[in-house]
Structure formats: structure tokens, C-alpha cells
């Protein structure tokens, strides 16, 4: 008997068809991937499977129960982690976990084995409120909450967005253990390495199933979407043409302490003009805190730093004139149109109407966005929003642009386009300071630093690092270094 049978399911919201004649089956104990770009209909599919939504047409059975008529039976058997799942921020880590354990009729002690690998990383912060955790830490806690019980079917809607590579590996190892207990798992993910860990995947696009097969089959068949050719990496050469580029960022012995906890613990580095600097680290290593100090959002506890020639301690308002910033959370106004957003941020940086109008048209033409000039940002797909946010953050030609996990949750093809934009900006002499959890993106950087426990553990070009630690790729370098961490939080 199949654990899940979906037959000809359709679902519309008004005129928008979210799911169009979708059919697939998942065997018992199978790890099944449901992949596709943002807005493909994955979330609607999960909700129908969990009996949260009723399909317009078609039938769904989960564990042999009908999703329309036997709601209670299904809800007793499934576990679900929604895409936008957030915890109770005013409860502590432990309270969250305990609540969800009780909710699913088990206890933390009983379920501890199945979550140990991830929960042990945050266990020392069990008395801290969930709201005070960093983004990646929250996600880890959410994973722990979702896995603390053993349902017979588990639905995971992009569970690892914003989680560092090491923890992602641990997470999938945990899923492997669940599989051994014959638990059926349906998961979606934008990470290719995770797609490869599924036994079968279904590729969903614009509400339709494009293909079902083994990961390799699907990834080869839709290579243009999932495995776009790498970007020509000739940037380093253009960089070296400048005889002696000056330092745009200089940081010495920078420390940020919250009480006795040193989130950033004595880091020093320099970034040269026009460089693409990858600022890597596990969740909670202190990346975001360091970035906040460089952009003038936070005052350092001690140490010195200069960005575009200004002191980060005293001249932060000067710095803000010469930098661009794009944060983890999407940072344009959703209720303004594309053009209005550009106009607002350009105006803030002191451009006049004529210049704005000219450069707006230019930019939109370049992005092939001209048709969407008057579209509300809220209605754009995630990938487009991120490209637009990046373009806006460099619209005033800043000396350096800070990108905090700019491609979180974005599909591979769009990520590639995004990096083309980064190269273009770097080519114009804009220094790019970027954090990411995608190790293929790390390879695109000119130079990389890897932060562990608030300190910089390694720094150099990707090739240098691979040689130094004797690892085949950045993923392994990162895993090698991050596994040495003793603490995990910021």
C-alpha cells in the first residue's frame, strides 16, 4: 500500500490556479522530494495533504485515509512543518520543545534520540527565549520541534532555509534515521545536495507536475533550471589589473559582547576595492552581528574598524552614505511598486528627479523588468524581489554593498542570475561583502573568511583554502572547520 496517493488534484484561489491536475504516489518509508521554484504550488499541496485545505477536484489519501472525509485520522498520524513556521518567541527554547512534545503526545525524553544531533547544538541556550535566537538557530529549534515525535508521515516544507551546511547535513542524517523506522517523509528544498538525498522527487512548476523520477533523472532532465552552467570566474584577473587597490574595509580586533557572551570575538580583516568577499560561518557564528557593526546598525564593544574610509564607531552616518545593504529579510516596501521603491531609495541618497527617472528606466531595461515598473513588489516572485532589492541597494553606486544571505530560499536558476548581477556590480568597482549558506556561491567569491565561534578561523581565496585544508570543495572545507565549533549562537 502506498503511504500517499494524490490523484488529479486541482486547487484555485480565485483566478489563480495553484495546483493543476496533480497526481503522484509516495511509497511507505520513502523519502520523497517535492521541488520547484517559489510559487509553484508546493505549500498548497502540503496543506491539502495535511487536511488544512480542501482540494477543488481530485482525491488524496494519506496512510489510507481520505483527506476530505477522514480528517481526524490523518491529523493523528502526520507531522507537519510549514514553510513559514515560527516558534513562540516569548517562550524559551526548552518550553517550545516541551510544548510541541506534549502536543504530539510524547515527551522530550522519549523523543530526545531522534533530535539529539541538532538539539544538542542549541540545548545550552534552553533557557533563552526563542525570540532572542538568530534566524538559523530558530530554524534548528523548529526542526527539533517537528521531529520530536514520530509520526507515520512527515511533511517538511523547505525546512532548512537559512540553515548552515553542517546543520543541514545533520538534519538529513536525522531524516535517514527516521526512514529506518519506516516513516514516510515528503520534503521540499532549494538545495541540490538535499534533493540528491531523496529517493524520488517530483518537479512542480506553476501548479503542474513536470516530472517524477530519481533525483539524477530530474536534475539532468531539467538541468537548465537546477544546474545552470557555472559563471565564468574571470573576475580575479580584472581585479589584479588595478596595480594596488586600496582597502575599502579595515577591521582590527573587533569585539561585540552581549553581557559575558562575545558574539564577535576579536576579528581582524581587510577587504580591497572591487573585491567579492564571502563572509561565511555557521548559524550563530556572529556573521550578522559583525555586519551590523560594519553598517553602523550596532556599536562595537571594542576594537576599531573603517569602512570606505570612515570610522565605524564615530562616523557611522557618513558610512551609511557610501554603502548599500540588503538584509536577510526582504527589504523593499511590499506595498509600493517597483518604480516607487527605486524612487524612494534613490531620493534618500540625494538623487534628483531627472537622474532618478533616467537611471530607473536604464535599470529596468537591464533587468528586463520594464513591463513590471508599476507592479506592486508584494506580487513579485521571491527571486525577482531579491534581484530588485540588490539592484536598489547599489542604485546609488556605493563604495561597498553588504548582502546578508541574499539568496536564501531562491531556486538555482535565479541564484545564478543573481550572481551575474553581483559580478556586474563588482566589475564596476563596487566592493561586495556577502554572507551565504550556499557553498557553490562561496566558490564564486574572490576571497572568503570562515567564522567559527565569533572568531575568523580561515581566510583566503577558495583555491587556497581547499589546498590548505586538503578538501575537494568549499562544502568540505566549511564542514571541516565548522565541526570544530564549541558553541552555537549569536
Amino acid at each position, binding site marked *: 500500500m502506498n503511504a500517499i496517493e494524490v490523484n488529479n488534484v486541482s486547487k484555485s484561489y480565485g483566478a489563480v490556479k495553484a495546483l493543476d491536475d496533480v497526481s503522484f504516489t509516495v511509497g511507505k518509508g520513502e523519502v520523497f522530494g517535492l521541488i520547484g521554484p517559489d510559487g509553484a504550488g508546493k505549500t498548497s499541496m502540503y*496543506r491539502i495533504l*495535511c*487536511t*488544512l*485545505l*480542501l482540494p477543488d477536484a481530485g482525491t488524496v489519501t494519506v496512510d489510507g485515509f481520505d483527506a476530505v472525509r477522514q*480528517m*481526524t485520522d490523518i*491529523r*493523528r498520524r*502526520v*507531522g*507537519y*512543518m*510549514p*514553510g*513559514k*513556521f*515560527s*516558534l*513562540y518567541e*516569548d*517562550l524559551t527554547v526548552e*518550553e517550545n520543545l*516541551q*510544548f*510541541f512534545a*506534549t*502536543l*504530539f*503526545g510524547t515527551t522530550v525524553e522519549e523523543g530526545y534520540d531522534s533530535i539529539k544531533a541538532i538539539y544538542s547544538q542549541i540545548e545550552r541556550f534552553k533557557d533563552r*527565549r526563542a525570540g532572542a535566537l538568530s534566524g538559523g538557530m530558530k530554524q534548528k529549534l523548529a526542526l527539533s520541534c517537528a521531529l520530536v515525535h514520530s509520526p507515520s508521515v512527515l511533511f517538511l516544507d523547505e525546512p532548512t532555509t537559512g540553515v548552515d551546511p553542517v546543520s543541514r547535513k545533520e538534519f538529513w542524517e536525522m531524516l535517514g534515521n527516521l526512514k529506518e523506522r519506516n516513516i514516510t517523509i515528503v520534503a521540499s528544498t532549494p538545495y541540490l545536495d538535499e534533493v540528491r538525498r531523496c529517493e524520488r522527487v517530483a518537479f512542480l512548476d506553476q501548479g503542474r507536475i513536470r516530472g517524477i523520477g530519481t533525483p539524477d533523472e530530474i536534475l539532468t532532465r531539467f538541468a537548465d533550471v537546477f544546474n545552470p552552467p557555472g559563471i565564468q570566474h574571470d573576475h580575479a584577473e580584472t581585479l589584479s589589473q588595478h596595480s594596488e587597490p586600496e582597502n575599502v574595509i579595515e577591521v582590527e580586533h573587533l569585539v561585540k559582547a552581549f553581557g559575558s557572551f562575545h558574539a564577535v570575538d576579536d576579528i581582524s580583516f581587510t577587504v580591497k576595492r572591487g573585491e567579492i568577499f564571502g563572509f561565511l560561518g555557521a548559524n550563530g557564528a556572529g556573521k550578522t552581528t559583525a555586519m551590523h557593526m560594519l553598517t553602523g546598525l550596532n556599536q562595537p564593544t571594542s576594537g576599531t574598524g573603517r569602512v570606505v574610509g570612515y570610522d565605524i564607531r564615530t562616523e557611522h552616518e557618513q558610512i551609511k552614505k557610501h554603502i548599500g545593504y540588503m538584509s536577510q529579510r526582504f527589504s523593499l516596501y511590499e506595498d509600493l511598486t517597483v518604480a516607487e521603491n527605486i524612487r524612494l531609495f534613490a531620493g534618500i541618497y540625494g538623487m534628483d528627479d531627472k537622474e532618478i527617472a533616467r537611471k530607473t528606466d536604464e535599470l529596468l531595461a537591464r533587468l528586463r523588468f520594464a513591463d513590471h515598473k508599476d507592479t506592486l513588489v508584494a506580487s513579485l516572485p521571491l527571486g525577482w524581489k531579491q534581484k530588485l532589492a540588490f539592484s536598489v541597494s547599489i542604485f546609488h553606486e556605493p563604495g561597498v554593498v553588504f548582502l546578508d544571505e541574499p539568496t536564501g530560499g531562491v531556486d538555482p536558476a535565479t541564484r545564478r542570475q543573481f550572481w551575474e548581477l553581483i559580478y556586474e556590480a563588482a566589475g564596476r568597482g563596487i566592493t561586495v561583502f556577502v554572507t551565504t549558506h550556499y557553498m557553490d556561491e562561496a566558490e564564486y567569491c574572490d576571497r572568503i573568511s570562515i567564522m567559527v565561534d565569533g572568531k575568523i578561523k580561515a581566510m583566503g581565496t577558495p583555491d587556497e583554502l581547499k589546498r590548505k585544508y586538503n578538501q575537494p570543495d568549499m562544502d568540505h572545507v566549511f564542514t571541516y572547520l565548522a565541526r570544530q565549533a564549541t558553541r552555537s549562537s549569536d
Partner: protein
Amino acid sequence: MKQFISFVIKEGKHILRDKRTMLILFGMPLVLMLIFGFAITTDVKNVRTVVVTSSMDHLTQQAVDRLAASEYFTITQVVATPRDAERVIRSQKADMAIVFGPDFASKRSGVQLIVDGADPNMAQQWTNYATAVMLNADASAVNTKMLFNPQLKSAYNFVPAIMGMLLMLVCAMMTSISIVREKEKGTMEVLLVSPVKPLMIIIAKAIPYLVLAFVILVIILLMARFVLGVPLVGSLFWIVVISVIYILLALSLGLLISNVAKTQLVALLLSAMVLLVPIVMLSGMLFPVESMPRVLQWISAIIPPRYYIEAMRKLMIMGVGIKEVAREVLILVGMLALLMALALAKFNKRLE
């Protein structure tokens, strides 16, 4: 059962950890009781009075002295003509002028009160008091007794109203927001998919607010009795029973709102627009229902706090028996049955 208890505990923690909201929730009844009990009065007191006379003779002086001696009036100045007096009133240096005619002494006649009529109620009361003081009308033919509230304290009238408002606010507004917050944050999806029955989720959510409402009720009653000196003459048992009916009604309303609202902001605005404004304005809390136009009286007839406040006033202040408030209680029970049935029928076990 264990799930249920841990659910209730979790909700309790949400409430307890939001310090600012807690402060407001408990500060509000205290402050409101103090303001209504002590600060809000329509006593005639310190009325700034101008005396208008061309010749201050003995009799005029006597009348003026009598006014000045009373605690109601303060003579601020003496001017020569009514025109001057009006100017003083217009520039808000005085509220009232007493014009003594030139022949006041001889005929005991010709006194005119020029009163700032902006506030109609107060203007009339000032006139009544001034007339009474000047005529020295002690030998009245009428013996008046003020029943239930001999000192005419406004607190007597407002304590039941504050109860009606705060209980509704805490139960309906807070419950609806806390349910909608879970929807907004996505946790509701997980709760619904969990083995816990949807009805249990809702009941567990309501219980902490029920407790909170009860604590607030007790605070108000204690303050009313011991700080404001409002005699709680009625049966405490029935006061509590009717309050519980009312609290349940408010919880059902909150549940209904949470079904309609998609975001916290909408829930907030809905509670404010649909609950708070009508309660304050149309329940007879501040403004008497019988002075309203017929249409508004009809609207006020479907507002639950109106009956609760009415019943509480009768029970607490007038001390009548349960028989006399049977009508109000029956209406409240009817509304409760209707709203609860509606709320439970409308409650979404799915997402749409």
C-alpha cells in the same frame, strides 16, 4: 488531558511574559476606578462668578456675601455693566455673572443671571444653585431623598460600566488577537495538524483569559467596596454568576472575530470598531440610552454590555433581588447561546 493542561500553561505564559500589556491590563481598572471614583464629578463647585452692580449697597452686599460664603461659587470680580461681564465670560475668566438691578435694594427684584450656556447641564445646575442660595430657600415645601446614592457619587454609576467595558475588552479583544496571532505566525497550522482536537485548542486558549477576567473582576469589586466606598448591597453570588455569563459571551465574540480576521491588525481594528466604540457610546455607560434617538436605541438593544451594565447597576447599587433583573439575565443568556453556537459552528477546522 495532559496536552490540554500544557496548552493552558503555554497560553498563560504568553500573557505573563508580555509585561507591558500586563501592566496595561491591570493598570487600566485601577486607574479607571480612581478617575471615575474621584476625578469625574459634575458637582457644582468653584463656579467663577462675576458680580455686576452699579451701586454696591447693603442688600446687594448681603446677597453677594451669601454667594461667596457658599462652596459653590467664587466671586472673581465686580464689574459695572453686563457688557463687561459678558466680555469676562467670553474670555473664559468666569462662568457666570449676577446682575443686580439698580433698584435691587428697594424692591428686592431685578436680578439677572448671565450664564455661560456652553455646557447645558452645568448651566442649568448653576442657575438652580444660584437661585436657591440667593433666595435662601431653606423653608422648602419639598423634602427630597436621593435613593441608593445619597451623596450623588458618580462612581456608583460607573463601576458597573467599567466592569462591562473591561471584561468585554479583555476577553473578546485579547482572545481574538491571540488566536489570530497563531494564524499569522503559522503555528496554527501545526496545532491543527496535531492530534489535539480543534475545539480543545480553542477552549485552552480561552481559559487563561477567563482567569484574567476573573482577577480583574475581583480587583474592581474590591476597589469599589474598599477604596471608593460603593456599597455592594446585592447578592455577591448572582453578581458573579451574571459576570460569568457575560465573560463567556465576550469569549464567544472574540472567537467570532478571530474567525473573520486574517491579521492581528484587522483583529485589533475589528475589536476596537465593533466592540469598543459601540460599548462606550451606546451601552448607556456614559450617555443615557433613553436620551438617544429611536434608531440608536434599537441598535443599543443588541449590544450585550447594555444588559450587563443594567443588571449590575441594579444588583450592586440598588440591591434588588434576582427577580428584578430576570429580564436582563434572560437576554444575556439568549445572546450567549446564540453567539456561542455561531462561534462554534463558524470555527474553521481547516485553513479557509
